[in-house]
């Protein structure tokens, strides 16, 4: 066989292999290595990440957020918004059934939104939609939502409200234990601290999806065990892993890393109701003392970017806009002296112990701060204790990691508005409050941009949060796991397109 023919044959074979590899195959169970066991599976109440990666496969919302962080139709086929921005009319997809075989109607959606709004439910999402005045199903396929004020992030927020079956909930089923929705996978079994098993929903409305027969979330708390488990093929998919684990897995054979920008960011929070951080100059000095690029290198192994108050690429102001991001220990000392602390300050810093990245970052920050006269006493706390201290505002400063939202209002309003539901810093600024209200009630995106640019300037240097780093979102998978796409919100909706190559 001469060389030319051989080359042609090889090319043909390659092309065949390529086209074979490109065709999704049905079947198989995806073995997922999850780091924590969920506390409950009611998506209206249990919003923590361990619950969310499971319930996100079982439930769907009116809309969903895509990889570019835009809302797009899910259970709603289309919608229209009145010119005053107060009335949303949704056309509901017909032919969608719940896992128990019953048809999903606009009534179920109205019921679900109202369940979130009901104070008896105790839903953390309730405050996100507190501008909703009324929800009505006008027919089986039409839903009308009335607002009391225009609310720009409405369509994004609705993506976070899981649609439940009214009959199923009213029949007294415990939604924390027996979830049931319209999503691509249906709940099958939960063995605590061992695994959660979801099965393919054969009636799923997206034709031919999902490809996988089942998802098995194996609960594996030890990171070394997850690493070996993936390397040996016991697990096939590790969603959202630490950067240090990603660095180790990079060179592992038959394992690939899937990356996206992460909306989650590490931060130092400062208590604005306690000395010395009640003084904006001290907060500004702390920002000058921090070297964010060094944290990117030392903690994120280069996979990250210094963080301003907004991580959304489309909304974020450039770093150059914030003078305090030019690290300068002398400037920090000068500001401290102006604030009346010429000899530096002593304070406590509590750290959420469940996240390795945060613990590492806190140590680097502690060193950096020491050079500018900030003497931090660092205390790494167990998660439950940290959450309690955080909620009770019982800290001088803390180090933690926050998840991001697809709309700037989703993060900024609750965090920085006076009395905001996660404003544990007790921060209050009339200028910021005014801008925040303007930002959420202005519907046009063009008009919102300058408002959020102003807000970022107000908050970056003197706000109660020193934003540290936006990381790279890493997931790791075996080579044969195909079709998965990551989303910066950490949602795993594309597991419905995922398949296993043989």
């Amino acid at each position: 066989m001469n060389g030319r023919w051989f080359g042609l044959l090889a090319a043909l074979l390659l092309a065949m292999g390529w086209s074979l590899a490109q065709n999704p195959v049905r079947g198989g169970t995806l073995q997922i290595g999850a780091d924590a066991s969920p506390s409950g599976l009611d998506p209206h109440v249990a919003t923590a990440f361990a619950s969310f990666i499971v319930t996100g496969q079982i439930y769907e919302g009116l809309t969903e957020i895509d990889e570019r962080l835009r809302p797009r139709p899910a259970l709603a086929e289309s919608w229209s918004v009145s010119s005053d921005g107060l009335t949303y009319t949704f056309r509901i997809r017909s032919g969608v059934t719940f896992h128990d075989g019953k048809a999903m109607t606009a009534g179920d959606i109205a019921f679900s939104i109202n369940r979130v709004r009901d104070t008896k439910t105790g839903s953390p999402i309730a405050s996100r939609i507190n501008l909703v005045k009324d929800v009505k199903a006008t027919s089986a396929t039409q839903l009308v939502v009335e607002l009391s004020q225009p609310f720009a992030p409405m369509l994004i927020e609705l993506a976070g409200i899981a649609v439940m079956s009214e009959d199923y909930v009213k029949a007294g089923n415990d939604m924390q234990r027996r979830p049931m929705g319209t999503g691509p996978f249906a709940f099958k079994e939960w063995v605590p601290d061992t695994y959660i098993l979801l099965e393919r929903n054969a009636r799923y409305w997206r034709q031919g999806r999902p490809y996988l027969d089942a998802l098995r979330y194996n609960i594996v708390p030890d990171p070394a065990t997850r690493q070996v488990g993936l390397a040996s093929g016991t697990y096939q998919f590790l969603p959202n892993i630490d950067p240090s684990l990603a660095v180790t897995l990079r060179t592992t054979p038959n394992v690939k890393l899937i990356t996206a920008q992460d909306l989650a960011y590490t931060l130092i929070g400062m208590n604005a109701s306690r000395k010395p951080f009640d003084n904006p100059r001290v907060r500004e000095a702390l920002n000058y003392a921090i070297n964010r690029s060094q944290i990117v290198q030392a903690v994120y192994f280069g996979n990250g970017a210094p963080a301003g108050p907004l991580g959304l690429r489309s909304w974020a102001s450039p770093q150059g806009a914030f003078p305090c991001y030019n690290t300068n220990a002398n400037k920090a000392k000068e500001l401290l002296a102006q604030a009346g602390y010429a000899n530096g300050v002593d304070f406590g810093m509590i750290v959420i112990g469940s996240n390795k990245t945060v613990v590492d970052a806190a140590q680097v920050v502690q060193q950096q701060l020491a050079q500018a006269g900030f003497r931090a006493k660092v205390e790494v706390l167990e998660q439950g204790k940290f959450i309690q201290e955080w909620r009770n505002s019982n800290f001088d400063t803390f180090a933690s990691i926050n998840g991001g939202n697809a709309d700037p209002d989703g993060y900024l309003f609750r965090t920085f508005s006076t009395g905001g539901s996660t404003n544990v810093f007790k921060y209050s600024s009339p200028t910021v409050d005014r801008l925040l209200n303007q930002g959420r009630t202005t519907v046009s995106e063009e008009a919102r941009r300058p408002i959020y640019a102003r807000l970022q300037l107000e908050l970056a240097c003197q706000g109660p949060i020193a934003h540290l780093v936006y990381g790279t979102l890493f997931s790791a998978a075996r080579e044969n796991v195909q079709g998965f796409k990551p989303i910066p919100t950490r949602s795993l909706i594309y597991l419905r397109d995922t398949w296993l190559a043989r």
Partner: protein
Amino acid sequence: MIAFLFKRSLDLLFVLFGVSVLVFLMIRLIPGDAVEIMLGANTEITPEGLAALREKLGLNKPIFVQYWDWLTAALRGDLGQSVWTGRPISEEIVQRLPITLELTVLSLVIAIGLAIPVGVLTAYWRNSSAEYLIRLVSITGVTLPSFWLGTLLIFLVFKLAPGWQTLGYVPFAQDPWGHLSRLVLPVITLSLPMLAGLGRVLRSSLLDVLNQDFIRTARSKGLAERTVLYKHALRNAMIPLVTVIGIQVGYLFGGAIVVEQVFAIPGMGRLILGAISERNYPLIQGAILLVTMTFVLINLLVDLVYAKLDPRVEYA
């Protein structure tokens, strides 16, 4: 003997009651409850929402009422339900306990089985290079933390025999070979420190016994060295060993918590650790009660074994 057993049973009830009160109070002293853990950090919630969620789990009742509810139900044999999965706790434990028992009993048997020859050999070959080698290994065994040893073994096996499945758990009935091959590393991890400790105890106690008069007598009346060792010396040297085994069983349970975590084995250790980190109060109470009961019963067993080994021990 009967009177002794009766008295010990009363002790058992007293210990169980004490432990139940202690555990009940202690787990509620840990900051944060199931609701806060569920919500996680940086979650929006109103005080009313928080109260509504606590009410659903019965966490808003006064602590005495909570304890009374739990105790009366427990006396009727109902240990309650797991907070999030809603499964009966007795069912949860029945599923997990055999896994941990298999792991610990197997480790115990192997540790004792190997400790006896190790103890005898090191006592007989005192100051030989073989003894120094065994001592070095056993000191290393005692000092290695099991989370480190376990991880090291996982990596080692993965490098040397990548096809060997070392993680997780498969029921014996489903796949006997897979079941056993997954047990090897956890059992080594768990038994090595115990083997090392027991071997050293047996060595020193055997050395004591071998220097005593009755051994000299036995030898001088012409008994074979085998008989001297196995019938006279070893039997007497076993008494301290049995005491240490009784104590070590408790540590074995503690060690199982770490080993199960490292090897992702769904036993009692994982159950308790998971329950504590998610503040699953009824599950912690039920599981600890059971572990306590096992521990007390083993101690009772140890006392009975004394009498078998040494007829001078009497119970009154």
